[in-house]
């Protein structure tokens, strides 16, 4: 990842995202919020009830993960990405609240991609299967909301050089599509 682009979240200038095209390797430092299914459902319910959200999403990065417990002497346990599409139904509303960077794995819905283009947000892929290594990029971790959800609570993680690749960029281009093209031709004839 030595040739990766570095960004710091929350973003002071979201226009830095415009030049990050699908397939670009990005190292993320700064603060990441975390949330999975249950936390998204709670956020959705709060918004429906007209209640304030427990955190601001303005220019923030949201990482889809439910970390493992921290062994003694560690800041956090394994903290790899979970499948982002489970959060799709809730995502356009968060993008409208200023969310700019999402980190997870897997495809996103057409509705999410169109909201990303509208709000100039990007979706970064963290590598599934390197949860232990990713825990080493975490310098500080604290629960910021829904503590009763255990591993599904919302955390604030302070990270340094968290490795990612741009999966969907601000013009809606998808690395999963782009990346498969050269390899599809190599599949045996059917």
């Amino acid at each position, binding site marked *: 990842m030595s040739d990766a682009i570095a960004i710091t979240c929350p973003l002071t200038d979201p226009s830095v995202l415009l030049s990050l095209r699908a397939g670009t390797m990005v190292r993320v430092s700064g603060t990441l919020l975390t949330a999975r299914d249950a936390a998204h459902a709670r956020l959705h319910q709060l918004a429906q009830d007209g209640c304030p959200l427990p955190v601001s999403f303005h220019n923030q990065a949201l990482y889809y993960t439910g970390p*493992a417990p921290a062994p003694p002497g560690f800041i956090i346990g394994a903290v790899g990405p979970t499948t982002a599409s489970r959060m799709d139904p809730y995502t356009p509303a968060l993008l409208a609240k200023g969310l700019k960077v999402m980190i997870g794995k897997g495809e996103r819905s057409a509705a999410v991609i169109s909201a990303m283009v509208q709000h100039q947000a990007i979706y970064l892929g963290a*590598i599934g299967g390197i949860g*232990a290594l990713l825990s080493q990029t975490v310098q500080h971790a604290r629960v910021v909301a829904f503590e009763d959800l255990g591993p599904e609570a919302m955390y604030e993680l302070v990270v340094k050089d968290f490795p990612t690749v741009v999966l969907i960029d601000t013009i809606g281009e998808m690395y999963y599509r782009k990346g498969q093209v050269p390899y599809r031709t190599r599949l045996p004839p*059917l």
Partner: protein
Amino acid sequence: MRTITAHQITEAVATLCQRANTCLPDDVYRALTVAHTQEASPVGQTTLQLLVDNADYARHSGVALCQDGGVTLVFLEIGQAVHLVDGLLEGAVQAGVRRGYQDGYLRGSMLDRPFGGHNTGDNTPAILYTRLVAGDQVTITVMPKGGGAENTSRLAMFTPAQGMEAIRDFVLDTIVKAGPASCPPLIVGIGVRPARILHSKSWKGNG
């Protein structure tokens, strides 16, 4: 006849749960290092290098390879000459999973019921597969099966006229579809069996 206590089973399962979540099997580790030398794309190379680094770090530190400790599958081959004492097999295995996950700082991922359920906190219940074999030993294999592996599993039935082509299409399509969400490395397991056998086993009396 050999006597084995429920406590021994619990101890073995607890140890295996921790080992399975922190130590990548040697064949998988070797496959990753080989793949790294053969990979052409820079993102692919970086990914494979980080997977190898992750395996090294997890083994050395004891931090789980992945935050998802999966559904714990416990395979037991039980010799017919074994006499299990001081408890029931099922309870002994569940106690082992409970202890392994709690002592190993592994995340519990199981719910106590499918709708509106709560995390049991210790990854129980595990799923047991038991087989009676010859001899006086018990062989236990623990496999933490992550949600990414379960979610992308697919089943299809083919007519004879569709032939191998259709099976191959289905397998390749399944792999391509699984690629983005399932975590690398993908280990592809393919089971094929005649429909009549599948039927008679799944739907007793209807085959």
